[in-house]
């Protein structure tokens, strides 16, 4: 009986944590990075975060912090507004894999591998933002 109670309580706590994490995720993110790019060459990307979360992707399939070739990012860090989890926190305009390359390789690379999702410039950098 005692064991059952602990299981239920633990399950509830984990579920609450998951809900709090998931509910903290925005549906759409506008990737504008005005701090990094003084002069924009293309319109910002309106990234449908919820579409990616609804699929079979794990958070750490995209979000990463590599150490010795291993992604050590803790998913609990992934909350909206946390500056450290922004791509530009590591991928600056000066880094080898700079911010532009990071986005392009991450997004187009995955879309190419999965054979779905946009791969053309204007499919992400839309002049008319999607509704």
């Amino acid at each position, binding site marked *: 009986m005692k064991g059952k109670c602990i299981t239920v309580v633990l399950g509830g706590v984990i579920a609450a944590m998951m809900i709090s994490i998931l509910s903290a995720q925005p549906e759409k993110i506008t990737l504008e990075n005005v701090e990094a790019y003084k002069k924009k060459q293309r319109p910002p990307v309106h990234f449908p975060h919820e579409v990616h979360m609804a699929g079979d992707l794990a958070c750490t399939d995209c979000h990463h912090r590599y150490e010795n070739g291993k992604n050590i990012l803790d998913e609990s860090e992934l909350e909206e507004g946390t500056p450290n989890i922004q791509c530009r926190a590591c991928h600056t305009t000066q880094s080898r894999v700079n911010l532009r390359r990071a986005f392009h390789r991450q997004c187009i690379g995955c879309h190419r591998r999965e054979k779905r999702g946009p791969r*053309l*410039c*204007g*499919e992400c950098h839309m002049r008319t933002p999607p509704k």
Partner: protein
Amino acid sequence: MFDFIRGPLLWVAFIVFFGGLVFQLLQFFTLTRKKERLFLSVHGKTKGRWSIESMRQWFESLLTTIIGTHPMMTILTLIFHCCLFVTPIFLLAHNILLDESWGISIWSFSESTTDILTVVLLVCGALFLLRRIFVRRVRAITTAFDYLILFITVAPFLSGYMAYHQWFHYKAILFAHILAGEVMLIVAPFTKLGHMLFFFLYRFLIGSEYSFGQGTRSW
């Protein structure tokens, strides 16, 4: 479809383009083995090659060419050809594609600059078209093929401009843009567009083709 026109077809286009240019180059040197003595030169020979007098004579001789007879057309053509080469090579989007594919890229203009260069090229192209239609002496020697060649040259830029501004159906326009570029590359070495190579070969190496240089080769 996208994978095919961006992948194998692009390779075919580049191989035909560069292979065609090399073929034409080799054929040119094979057909012009004969040498001839240069009897006439438009350059002043009385003074040193780089003297002011010599330069003045050279400049005056240029005025007897199309530069002097049709200066506006000369300027227009010069601008058109500059835009034709500079725009696609230093286009940011093309260099990003190169970077994503091979990890190499060169310096690029801003997108707004290439946008202006494209408009300039399109205006020049439109004036060439009007010239072919309305100038009687040009119309007299114009065939349907000339219009086709002008269209093949301008099409990648027109479709590129439309794709950049995301007019109409973006994906269809971008496919048309890539295809138009590939068609231009494939036909360039084997049509009138081959003057990108032949201009330099004929005008600098063939003695009897109003050589700018000291060309002594002959057909």
